[in-house]
């Protein structure tokens, strides 16, 4: 199913009905990928100059009405010498090794980002919704 990493979804369900506390992350990072992720398979993370493996810390607004969006902005400048083809997005928490929480695809993917161009996310550019 879209959005939730399967292991994370299991942790949520066990917290809901099995009294197993959900260990929350204190920070989350947004990762860019060159393939589409699924609930059980991570995307292929982007590589190259201008992108740091492991992603960029992103902050989110408090959830309301089962939805939220990012409050911080992010930008990556392609200095790899070739074009980036950006497809997937993943949000990882810093708890554990870290752990993948959420996944999806960028609107209109694949998005081509030529060398020297920047790929950016404005505030509210990433929306998360459970309804």
């Amino acid at each position, binding site marked *: 199913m879209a*959005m939730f990493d399967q292991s994370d979804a299991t942790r949520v369900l066990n917290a809901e009905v099995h009294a197993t506390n959900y260990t929350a992350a204190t920070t989350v990072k947004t990762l860019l990928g060159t393939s589409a992720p699924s609930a059980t398979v991570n995307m292929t993370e982007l590589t190259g100059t201008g992108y740091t493996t492991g992603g960029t810390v992103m902050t989110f607004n408090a959830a309301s009405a089962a939805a939220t969006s990012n409050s911080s902005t992010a930008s990556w400048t392609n200095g790899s010498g070739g074009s980036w083809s950006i497809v997937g997005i993943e949000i990882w928490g810093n708890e554990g090794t870290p752990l993948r929480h959420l996944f999806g695809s960028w609107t*209109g993917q694949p*998005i081509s980002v030529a060398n020297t161009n920047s790929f950016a996310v404005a505030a509210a550019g990433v929306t*998360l919704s459970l309804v």
Partner: protein
Amino acid sequence: MPTFDPKPLRVSCNQCGTTAETWDYQHPDLAVECSCCPVAHDHAGLGCRPVTITATAHLTLFDIRELMDMATANGTLPERSEAAQEV
């Protein structure tokens, strides 16, 4: 209710700030036309550079493609070819 609200890319020239929106996700830098672009546009894939491309993502439990695939697999929806024959 879930909404389907695709957004265009917003593209801004890093030199002068000229901004445009585009649905051309493969050649977003063609959206910006400004005199300060260091590279002349050739309209074959080479546009204004450098630009900043601002994108969006909507992460939700269900997306329309998944729902249609599930419905088709369950027999709730006819295969696309069958639907076309009925029309």
